[in-house]
């Protein structure tokens, strides 16, 4: 009887610990994933008259949709009630945008919040787990899950099958 009670208590304690662990795990990851930020290696200029932020040097920008990396970023914002919201984000040089399992690369990118579209230009590529496409311009329509890859001519549009899909 004593042994049974001992194990029951141990089981209860174990359940409580697991529940608490799950609770804190969910809280922690829900917060870290939803956090938006701008990081800059060299400087950040807040221009309140022109309502913009300019970040320089190893810039990292994260919002609800994607994480972007570039050498320079200019983000324009508007004031809504008491909050400030980014409306247009421009990224310059060595642009890398990670969106779910896709990686977009280019020399310049512009994201517009209103239509939720990312447009990249200059040596553009789109890499997914199965393929790599290269061109001159990429339009990624996030809401409609559509990608348009343009090129100056047919020859400059390149499709490369990645290794993990080559066997299929």
């Amino acid at each position, binding site marked *: 009887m004593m042994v049974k009670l001992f194990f029951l208590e141990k089981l209860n304690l174990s359940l409580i610990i697991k529940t608490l662990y799950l609770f804190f795990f969910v809280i922690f990851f829900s917060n870290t994933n*939803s*956090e*938006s*930020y*701008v*990081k*800059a*290696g*060299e*400087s*950040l*200029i*807040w*221009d*309140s*008259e*022109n309502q913009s*932020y300019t*970040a320089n040097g190893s810039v990292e920008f994260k*919002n*609800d949709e994607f994480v972007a990396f570039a050498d320079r970023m200019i983000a324009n*914002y508007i*004031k809504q009630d*008491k*909050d*400030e919201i*980014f409306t247009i984000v421009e990224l310059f040089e060595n642009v890398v945008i990670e969106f779910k399992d896709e990686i977009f690369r280019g020399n310049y990118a512009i994201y517009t919040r209103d239509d939720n579209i990312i447009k990249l230009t200059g040596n553009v590529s789109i890499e997914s787990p199965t393929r790599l496409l290269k061109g001159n311009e990429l339009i990624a329509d996030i809401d409609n899950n559509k990608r348009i890859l343009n090129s100056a001519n047919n020859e400059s549009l390149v499709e490369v099958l990645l290794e993990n899909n080559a066997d299929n």
Partner: protein
Amino acid sequence: MINIFNTKIIYFLIILILGLQIFIYFYNQNSLTKSFSQKNITVENFSSVVLSNSGITKIGSEKLNKIDDNKIYLEGESYLENKEYKIYGNNISINLIDEISSSEDSVKVINSMGTLKAKGFKNIDYDGKIIFFGEVEFVIDN
């Protein structure tokens, strides 16, 4: 005999206490971490308001040093606060004529978009620009 001895001890203690007080007084007169050629005025635990391009800015610090009519130096923990931002930093210089404040020490800024941390800043108030130096992290409120 005992009374004379006690009186001497009391005198000695009074002199010792007075000496200690003089020592403490002079020891607490910390010199400024920055030296300025002009005569300055120092006020401790200071707070005031400044009218500038961005409106009324509340300023405060552990120690305020007035360099001249146009320049003040906020020594130690200091802040600048107005309707657009709250800047919390250390050792902030303010030029009232040029409307420029700056610091080379770590700074934390809270505005209506989020919280920003940087290694230093230069606030060009007449232009509505704040330049943050070094590694900058700006966490945006959702």
